[in-house]
């Protein structure tokens, strides 16, 4: 049984190339917990900003009439990957895990797999 902080710690220690992670409530845009980050990556700002990304995609799916759920969202930058994983079965208040990775050191497939594992630990 993991609490939010240990889940985030696990994300940054077990995932290669992790620069920082946040657990974000995407209705309010608040980071419920953050780890890593720093001067170059303000995770509170990233949390609030990526909330708009998630909301825009959810709205688009609504407009398209897609009866499906977002599993994760990948944003590829020149030097980084930003991975957003939406957490399921949390009542009506949506949460997502946000993970910033160093592109040169990260294995994307492995990172996605690890995030899925961390999500499962957070729930059960």
């Amino acid at each position: 049984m993991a609490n939010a902080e240990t889940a985030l710690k696990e994300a940054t220690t077990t995932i290669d190339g992790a620069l920082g992670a946040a657990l974000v409530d995407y209705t309010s845009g608040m980071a419920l917990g953050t780890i890593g980050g720093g001067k170059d990556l303000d995770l509170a700002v990233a949390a609030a900003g990526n909330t708009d990304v998630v909301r825009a995609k959810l709205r688009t799916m609504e407009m398209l009439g897609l009866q499906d759920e977002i599993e994760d969202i990948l944003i590829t930058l020149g030097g980084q990957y930003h991975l957003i994983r939406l957490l399921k079965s949390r009542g009506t208040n949506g949460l997502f895990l946000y993970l910033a990775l160093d592109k040169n050191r990260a294995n994307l497939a492995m990172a996605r797999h690890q995030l899925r594992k961390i999500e499962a630990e957070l729930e059960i």
Partner: protein
Amino acid sequence: MLLRLAEERATGALLRDHGTLYLVEGRIVHAESPVAPGPDVLLTAGGRLARGRIAAGELEICLLGALFDAAFFALAPGGPARFRYGVAPWTGTVRPVSATDVERETLRRRLLLDSVWPYPAVDTAPVVPRPASPGQTVTARQRALLAQADGVRTPAQLAWALGRPAFHTLLDVRRLAAAGLVATPHEPTPYEPAPNETASDPDRDPDRDPAPERAQDQDPDPDPAPARDPDIALLRRLRDALEAHL
């Protein structure tokens, strides 16, 4: 005041008009507000408890969310503030949160509400749904909220009915109001003419009509200089609505 209490590492309860913050050695361990549903309501009315036991992580997230929700209302500007040293919360507490974090988040939330739709009147008025325009869609969350909006319940009452944090409900209602799916109540504000405006207004005779009653025609306008021309006020609201859709 909160930051000063944090600095002196105070323990006790900070009492405000819209809620109470509990501090232990300057850090916030609990907050409650009559506006914000507590964790018990969030977990039961949301239907979460019925679905089985709660994981430690989920409970922690719920308690933390409830703390920031209650703190948002407890720290509302204006009104008196009293501190009772030594008072402890009667209920279980969450991992302590720094006063700086709570202050910063509360301020961010206040700015967020105004960036979505700068009409605070919608926060406390009964939520009155309006018909959607053709092709306009809402999210599942918003649909559930609109289904409970009977034209009598306020956003806070909807939050309790739905088992959602009160701030989240305010934000949803402001977004719906910006989209035109919830009515924005008319908010007559007393019109105070600027000194230079009074002097340059040829229609007004200061001796006969020192304080003209203009409150009825004023649209709620957040800009410091109220628009004299109703077209400009309309255009501003249109601009705000368009920006809210970006």
